């Protein structure tokens, strides 16, 4: 029992802290709601420190329903980065839009509890519960700007399609349970290696479950919700949503297929190889045509999911390490970019997401433009920035597993993808402003931008700390 409590400790701590935040919300006056973000950040940092796994740490709880290990911890780091940058970056934006409510930060905080369950689950029922906790929080976050029609649309759309995908997942789960008689990953693996995969209902169940997870990581052809949801949600929320929930879905997916479907590796490798190619190519090609930066970044998020799927296909230790590292890096660069985007405004327009609004930014706000340039080149994977380390790791994983063709498709996609990131820099550096640009980063936004910039450079040049973090992961 004691061991089970330790295994679930991060979630327990986070729940206590979430209740604490609710209490603080009660006493905080309307102008002081940002304080909840600061408390949330402090709480998550405390949890992060208290749950550091020490040397080969792996604690199995509740008779194998969930574990707390270095793998889950690495993903917890991703969630924390997303929460810290995402909530701090939201402060100015929420104030400007007049929706600076405590709930926003509390719901973000709660969603992380769901994500923690997802990545530490070794039982399908726990995985499903975690997924729903996360998803329900995200639906609210997407529609948080309730006076804005696009945000409403985003929330509703996300809810309907999300519910649909959860249902598919659950339906598949019932087949798997029916065939194997268990929801534990290890027992499913045993059944598969004993009896093989050659059973229609099992195959159908697996495909439906994987499709349900593919929805969450917005892999093509399960992506159709992503562009609208991402571009409709409040900008800082989009930054968070493209990182944390996606990381959680990847974390859960990898543990599931790594442990439960290990005997059937070859068959799901093909499944994900196809998804990876479709996702990368579609995301990149459509992103080129976008003139709205937020929408462009939404499609770019799809293409990045495609790159990360290469790591899934590789099915070796480098593969899942690469995904965790990629998510950490992606968290810094993408939320950094979204924070700058969320502060673009000009006369009469409180949110300006058009590419043209970036014209001449390098003159009016040289430092902001430089940071955005670094984020864009990092997203494109140009060294010495962090994004390159992530891509390098992913491609190394693919080549190690002899998926050279997939790596080639990946690098060709990177070259194509580079173009739309460059378009932002073209506007910032090479074009004259059409009108007075206003992007005076507010203090909180400036801090987020600064932290993200520092890490984007630091991880690019000295990746050892984070490389070791993911190298120590064991599933």
């Amino acid at each position, binding site marked *: 029992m004691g061991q089970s409590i330790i295994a679930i400790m991060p979630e327990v701590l986070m729940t206590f802290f979430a209740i604490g935040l609710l209490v603080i919300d009660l006493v905080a006056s309307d102008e002081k709601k940002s304080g909840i973000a600061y408390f949330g950040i402090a709480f998550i940092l405390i949890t992060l420190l208290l749950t550091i796994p020490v040397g080969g740490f792996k604690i199995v709880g509740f008779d194998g329903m969930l574990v707390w290990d270095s793998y889950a911890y690495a993903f917890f780091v991703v969630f924390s980065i997303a929460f810290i940058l995402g909530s701090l970056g939201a402060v100015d934006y929420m104030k400007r839009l007049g929706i600076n409510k405590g709930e926003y930060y509390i719901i973000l905080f709660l969603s992380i509890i769901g994500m923690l369950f997802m990545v530490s689950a070794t039982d399908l029922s726990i995985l499903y519960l975690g997924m729903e906790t996360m998803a329900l929080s995200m639906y609210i976050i997407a529609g948080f700007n309730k006076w804005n029609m696009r945000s409403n649309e985003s929330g509703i759309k996300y809810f309907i399609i999300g519910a649909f995908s959860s249902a598919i997942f659950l339906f598949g789960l019932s087949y798997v349970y029916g065939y194997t008689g268990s929801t534990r990953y290890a027992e499913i693996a045993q059944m598969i290696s004993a009896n093989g995969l050659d059973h229609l209902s099992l195959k159908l169940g697996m495909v439906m479950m994987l499709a349900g997870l593919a929805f969450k990581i917005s892999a093509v052809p399960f992506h159709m919700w992503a562009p609208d949801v991402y571009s409709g949600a409040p900008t800082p929320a989009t930054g968070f949503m493209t990182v944390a929930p996606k990381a959680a879905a990847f974390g859960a997916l990898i543990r599931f297929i790594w442990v439960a479907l290990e005997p059937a590796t070859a068959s799901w490798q093909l499944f994900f190889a196809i998804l990876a190619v479709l996702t990368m190519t579609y995301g990149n090609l459509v992103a080129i045509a976008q003139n709205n930066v937020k929408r462009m970044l939404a499609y770019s998020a799809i293409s990045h999911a495609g790159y990360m799927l290469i790591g899934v296909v590789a099915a070796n230790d480098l593969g899942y390490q690469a995904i965790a590292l990629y998510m950490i890096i992606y968290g810094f660069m993408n939320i950094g970019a979204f924070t700058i985007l969320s502060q673009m405004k000009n006369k009469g327009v409180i949110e300006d997401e058009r590419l043209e609004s970036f014209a001449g930014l390098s*003159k009016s706000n*040289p430092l902001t433009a430089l940071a955005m*340039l670094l984020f864009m*080149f990092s997203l494109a994977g*140009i*060294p*010495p920035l962090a994004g*390159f380390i992530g891509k*390098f790791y992913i*491609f*190394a994983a693919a*080549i*190690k597993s002899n998926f*050279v063709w997939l*790596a*080639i498709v990946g*690098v*060709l996609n*990177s*070259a194509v993808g*580079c*173009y739309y990131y*460059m378009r932002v*820099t*073209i506007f910032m*550096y*090479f*074009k004259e402003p059409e009108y007075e640009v206003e992007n005076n980063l507010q203090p909180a936004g400036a801090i987020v931008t600064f932290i993200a910039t520092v890490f984007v450079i630091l991880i690019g040049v000295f*990746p*050892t700390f984070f*490389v*070791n973090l993911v*190298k120590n992961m064991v599933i």
Partner: protein
Amino acid sequence: MIDNILTTLIFFPLLAAFVIFLFFRSGKATMWAAFVASVIELIMTMPLMFNFNKGTAAMQFVEKVDWIPAFGIQYHLGVDGISVLMIFLTTLLTAIAILGSFTYIQKRRREFYLAMLVLETGMVGVFLALDFFLFYIFWEAMLIPMYLIIGVWGGPRRIYAAVKFFLYTLAGSLLMMLAIIALYFKHGAITGVYTFDILQIASVTYPAEFQIFVFLAFFLGFAIKVPMFPFHTWLPDAHVEAPTAGSVILAGVLLKMGTYGFLRFCLPITPIASIKFVPLIATLSVIAIIYGALVAMVQEDIKKLVAYSSVSHMGFVTLGIYAFNPAGIEGGILQMFNHGIITGALFLLVGLIYERTHTRIINEYGGIAVKVPVFATFFLIFTMASIALPSMGGFIGEFLVLVGSFQAFSDYAIVAAIGVIFAAVYMLWMYQRVFFHKLNPKWEKLLDVNVREVIYMAPLIILVFWVGLYPETFTSYMHESVANLVENIQAVKVALK
């Protein structure tokens, strides 16, 4: 300082850029500070040149520190006879390009000089890195400042040119990255040691099929950079649109990275594939020589003419390298050096006159030699050097290349020699139309070169004659390294037979 001289050389410009960024606010102050920094960098190259041991093919001034141990990635630097001249060329041309931009660059001066210094760090790093990962980082990182230099300070079609330059180079290098990763795993599988160390990776013989895959990926990356026909289409755009300093660095240093890549990676790591692909490379080189010259002939824009002449001259370099004999390779390296000096100088001269006339169209000039005699003399010197007049640098380089390639594949050498004649045609014809004939009355008040311009042209003029009259000063650096390289590849050649 001599212990970490290579690290100092790489990071001094970056550090200087950072200090300047923090403490210098005005464009003028930044400009001077950047120039001083680049001159200090050039002076710091001197101990490297003087203390270089010419009697060995081994890497010198080696620095080796673990960097990302999880992947066997090291911070590994070293210099040998192949790279030492390139370092000198880089630091020299950067200082000259900065001095040459004083009046040319009028807008956003501060950013321009910072970009130049950051660029210098990348360029020096490429020539010194002995770890594939480190090499790749410098190789790509350099693109960002160059992209900005073309895109912000370039001509009317600068955006198109900058994007084209960036994407072309990126596409080539990404495949190279895959080849590097493949080498890493292959080397690990063969020896059990997983490392990105270039020397260690080069010490293993790989299966022929694998070599072909690696070679093709490298080839694409380097051929785009050189650029070899048919991958050259980015070059005229980038060279013409870039500001003078950008063109000088592009032609003088960036193109050399492609040929340097062939020498440093393709020949030692994939000798079997290199030997197999000799006919392809020799053919493409000869096409580049002839085609570049023919296209240069019909250009109406002087800068474009010089740009196409680069394609032609770089063809000689690749031809010489793939002759696989000492004369050819030494000629190739010397030609890399010469081309950097000569084409750099020509771009500077074109930029210099453009500042005064705001045109580069040949037909709009005419007879200006009477108005700007000193400028005309400078231009004549480099025109002659470019067409390989004996006693000038270009002659020694092309002559050695032709000697080497004649021994290896005489048919190609004969066609290449025709290219030398074409060079005389397009350069002299252009010179005649610009400087002689009747004076175009528009240029009645044209001013001759000033002191600053003489200062930055002088070292180039001295060097072009120095190489032409006493090439041993420069070739002596490379004898051992080239001999070693040739020995290894000839041994593979014999083994194949």
